[in-house]
């Protein structure tokens, strides 16, 4: 099964029952499979007239109670930016799948990149927070997709599933566990009756409980700055309260949200920081370097946003250098640099996309770091 199809299966397993999408290479196979699978599962797929429509149709569906997703690639994602902000401010659980291709603009439609990493963090106007995951195999497209949906429900933020063309079109065996073995997070439905419920009142964990249209709560949802009742309240104190919660629910849970995979980190003097397909491409370079006697470790970010700064900070105290290969001209490396805060060297291994790094390119930088 390829990564695109595995992602679709993951979404189904996570309980996703509503997808609206618009075709775009190299992501289309995800929705094509969904369209194939859903009629007999009891859900809904609709191909909308564009990405703008898709990205808000899913938000409507989420407020009718469904777990929802849309799927796209860079150009489509650029069109969804307004609704990412809308999802963030209305705290609508939703998953955006981005199968990254070469950019900017139409760029390299059929070739890989990892150059939308900053975009998903910053692409909508105003301040907000999101979560972004980065799978590196079809199996992970399945497994992490379930995690993506669970996080969307847990934090009520847009969650980005950052695939790339290689992972999307890579075919490997995928093991799909029994449904009973899959941990699925249900929506945080309120237990409060209509009169007492306020859509945006939250307790300490900062994530409000949810209801859906049709249940008699007569909720109001708006993209304007709003109070706990969900009513527009366009004044600085309300803005402050709302923003502190919108950002706080992620920023305060940064540590909890860390998902990194380490290899050889115990004795590492040089750490390669990678994510997605690049984590597999780094493999041979790291092996080769270790063969040459260098103490090279590997830190792979499964969750790229929020950025696992504390992990890097810890490592920065004891390693000699970080090497950061990514299929873009230097994006996540900026975060690494910031976290490292001058404690040690950070070596970027940028790549314009269209293909993956040659392991040799990464090796060269590792050797440079060792010098």
């Amino acid at each position, binding site marked *: 099964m*390829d990564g695109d199809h595995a992602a679709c299966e993951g979404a189904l397993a996570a309980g996703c029952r509503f997808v609206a999408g618009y075709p775009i*290479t190299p992501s289309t196979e995800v929705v094509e499979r969904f369209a194939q699978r859903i009629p007999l599962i009891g859900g809904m797929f609709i191909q909308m007239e564009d990405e703008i429509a898709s990205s808000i149709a899913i938000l409507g569906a989420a407020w009718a109670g469904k777990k929802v997703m849309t799927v796209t690639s860079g150009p489509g994602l650029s069109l969804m930016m307004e609704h990412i902000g809308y999802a963030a401010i209305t705290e609508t659980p939703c998953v955006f799948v981005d199968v990254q291709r070469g950019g900017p603009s139409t760029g*390299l*439609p*059929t070739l890989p990149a990892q150059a939308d990493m900053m975009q998903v963090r910053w692409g909508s106007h105003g301040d907000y927070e999101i979560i972004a995951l980065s799978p590196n195999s079809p199996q992970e497209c399945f497994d992490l997709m379930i995690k993506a949906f669970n996080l969307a429900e847990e934090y009520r933020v847009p969650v980005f599933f950052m695939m790339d063309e*290689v992972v999307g*079109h*890579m*075919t*490997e*065996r995928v093991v799909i566990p029994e449904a009973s073995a899959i941990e699925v997070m249900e929506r945080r439905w309120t237990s409060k009756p209509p009169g007492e419920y306020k859509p945006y009142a939250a307790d300490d964990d900062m994530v409000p409980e949810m209801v859906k249209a049709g249940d008699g709560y007569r909720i109001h949802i708006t993209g304007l700055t709003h109070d706990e009742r969900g009513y527009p309240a366009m004044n600085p104190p309300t803005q402050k309260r709302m923003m502190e919660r919108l950002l706080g629910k992620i920023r305060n849970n940064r540590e909890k949200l860390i998902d990194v995979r380490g290899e050889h980190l115990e004795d590492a003097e040089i750490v390669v920081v990678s994510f997605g397909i690049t984590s*597999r*491409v780094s*493999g*041979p370079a790291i092996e080769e370097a270790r063969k040459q006697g260098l103490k090279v470790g590997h830190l792979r970010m499964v969750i790229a946003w929020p950025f696992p700064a504390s992990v890097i900070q810890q490592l920065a105290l004891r390693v000699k250098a970080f090497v950061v290969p990514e299929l873009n001209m230097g994006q996540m490396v900026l975060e690494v640099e910031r976290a490292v805060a001058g404690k040690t060297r950070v070596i970027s291994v940028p790549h314009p996309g269209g293909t*993956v790094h040659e*392991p040799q390119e990464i090796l060269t930088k590792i050797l440079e770091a060792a010098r």
Partner: protein
Amino acid sequence: MSKTELRVGGLGGQGVILCGMIIGKAASIYDGKHATLIQAFGPEARGSACSAQVTVSDEPIGYPYVKQPDMLVLMSQDAATQFVPQLKPGGLVLYESELVPKMPPLPAGARALGIPATRFAEELGRRLVLNIVMVGFFAGVSGVLGYESVEKAVLDSVPKGTQDLNLRAFRRGYDFGCELLAKQTQGAS
């Protein structure tokens, strides 16, 4: 052998990826090995150069790219020109004989076997099954995977309603491969 690497190359529309996919599938599902397939296709998924990289291994596969293939399946001259120089010494090249008129020099110990797969496919009634003829040819001569595994993988991968035709295409390629091997063995003997 713990790892076999394969590259299938041709033009969009020839079914290059499916060809690689079937081989990978045969290996991973029916022969219990690990397999990874990477596609590389041209700008628009049609017309231009197109290739699949398949790694079949007893171990889980990390790095998924094929740098030095053990085997090549070639369906266009461009693919031959590009990929033959990467072939491992002693490797095997299978090619569409009418579409690859000029085989580049092979590395030491390598062999190249041709098949007029397009013509066979046309004879079978649909030139689209040329890739399945190539798969059959692969099964017949490569010796990496069992006939049954590959046949099952073919059946599993083609649209319903075309299975018969595809089986015939597979068989055609397989038989041609076996004959060719037989002939070569005779010649060699």
